[in-house]
């Protein structure tokens, strides 16, 4: 009668009904509609829609941008987390609080601010133009927007791990004659690697799906600066629901596989760490 004992608290059926109702109506029903719609497309048509030149170009742009942004944010995220946990300096709370902003800032606001900032009239656009760099309406703009919206992800993953790092282990390694880089590589890195991997994964997935901040700065030219979510938007505007469905399913399956790999890699690292 183990089961009965565990349901001693009243309200099981009530909370079950509410939860299933919420989940069913908001999440499961619409996602099922997507699956059914994808099924109805049929395999040959599906393949045709998923592999058009313009579509393939958009996958490449999205993946390349997300990979670059995730790498940049992993490096700077590590740096920021290090600075915030290992040093004391004036304005530390401000830096820490500022990092919360990209999480909460509406993507449209980020989008127009970055687009204007890097345009010919903007402060940074004028600054980098003489160097021959163009950001707004190019692939660079996509990367900048992606970096902005995912700025806090790696920091917030790594920060708690670095804060809990035992300084006595590093000191012991130092006493034993380890150089700074040896200690970083052999003592610090294994500790934070799972968090870095998780952070990289979060940034990458978010960047793939990101839309709002990118459309303003990207210029949205087919084959050059058109990300996959934007192409889905175009298909919808042309009432090509099948095309939109196919792209959405490809994106969803891709990010599930990616997340699965990242998740298992992270678990492997954590197990090795012990």
């Amino acid at each position, binding site marked *: 009668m183990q089961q009965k004992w565990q349901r*001693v*608290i*009243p*309200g099981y059926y*009530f*909370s*079950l009904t*509410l*939860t299933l109702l919420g*989940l069913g109506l*908001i*999440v499961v029903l*619409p*996602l099922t*509609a*997507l699956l059914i719609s994808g099924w109805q497309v049929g395999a040959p048509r599906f393949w045709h829609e998923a592999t058009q030149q313009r579509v393939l170009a958009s996958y490449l742009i999205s993946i390349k941008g997300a990979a670059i942004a995730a790498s940049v944010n992993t490096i*700077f995220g590590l*740096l*920021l987390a290090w*600075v915030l946990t290992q*040093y004391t*300096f004036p304005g530390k709370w401000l*830096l820490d609080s*500022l990092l*919360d*902003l*990209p999480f*909460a*800032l*509406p*993507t*449209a*606001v980020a989008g*127009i*601010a970055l687009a*204007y900032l890097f345009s010919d009239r903007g*402060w*940074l656009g004028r600054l980098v133009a003489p160097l021959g760099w163009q950001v707004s309406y190019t692939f660079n703009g996509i990367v900048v927007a992606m970096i902005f919206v995912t*700025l806090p992800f790696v920091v917030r993953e790594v920060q708690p791990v670095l804060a809990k790092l035992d300084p006595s282990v590093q*000191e012991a390694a*130092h006493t034993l004659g380890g150089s*700074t880089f040896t200690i*970083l590589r052999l003592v610090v890195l294994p500790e934070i690697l799972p968090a870095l991997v998780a952070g990289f994964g979060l940034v990458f997935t978010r960047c*793939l*799906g990101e*839309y*709002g901040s990118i459309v303003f700065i990207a210029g949205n030219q087919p084959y050059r600066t058109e990300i996959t*979510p*934007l192409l*889905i*938007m175009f298909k*919808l505007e042309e009432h090509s*629901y099948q095309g*939109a*469905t196919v792209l*959405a399913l490809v*994106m*969803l399956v891709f*990010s*599930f596989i990616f997340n699965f790999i990242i998740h298992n890699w992270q678990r492997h690292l954590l197990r090795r760490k012990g």
Partner: protein
Amino acid sequence: MQLLQAKKVKWLLLAIAWLFIFGILILPLALVVMQALALGWRTYLTTISSLVTLQAVNLTVAATVISLLFNLVFGISAAWLLTFYDFPGKHLLNALIDLPFSVSPVIVGLIFVLTFGQTGWLAPLFTTIKVQIIFAPPAIFLTTIFVTFPFVARELIPVLAAKGREEEQTAALLGASAWQILRQITFPALKAPLATGLVLATARALGEFGAVAVVSGSIRGKTLTLSLLVQTLYNNFKFKQAFVVATILLGSTLAVVILKRRLLRE
């Protein structure tokens, strides 16, 4: 490790960190404020108090309040269910709650169009009862609920799991009703994470753009949220006005971040 504790290295790393944050975060935010005020206070105030802006504020606030109410009820019920009982399929349910976070906003819009749109699944039902969902406020409310779906549940579940079910079980054995247990035992323990979850959901609901852009149709005065109004103004080359409306969103973002910090400190 002495190298990294050296003054010079510390200042170098700090300088890089601040420069990066200044370039990519502080400058864009400063630009929003400067551009908004570029035409002077008078223009700022007339833009912000114009009918279109106020209608957008109304719709955005309505969508936010509705998703917060949903989050409140669903979050508590899901946390209650997943902590207090064991049942088959519990892990699946737990995983499904997180699902909305990994769906791209544009895809969120798409799935609601496929369900409720003209050619959608439930179209016959809603045409007979003459309720329009897509290109009308209900679709905006539904997509906003979807994108904020896991926030409160995610905050509540670990806290409730850490608290355990002993107190509730004792109360139940003493004959307390579910409502009494919720009000007197469970709810007081959930106040802090509930507030955090609601604040996070508020931020997301106020600023949702991609999903809403797909389903709203951007009908002036009817289905324009603040984010969509910003887009419409910007695309019509009314840059300054777009930045004026953006300051409303920026202001609420700052309020949300400060509130969240306060809550976490307590």
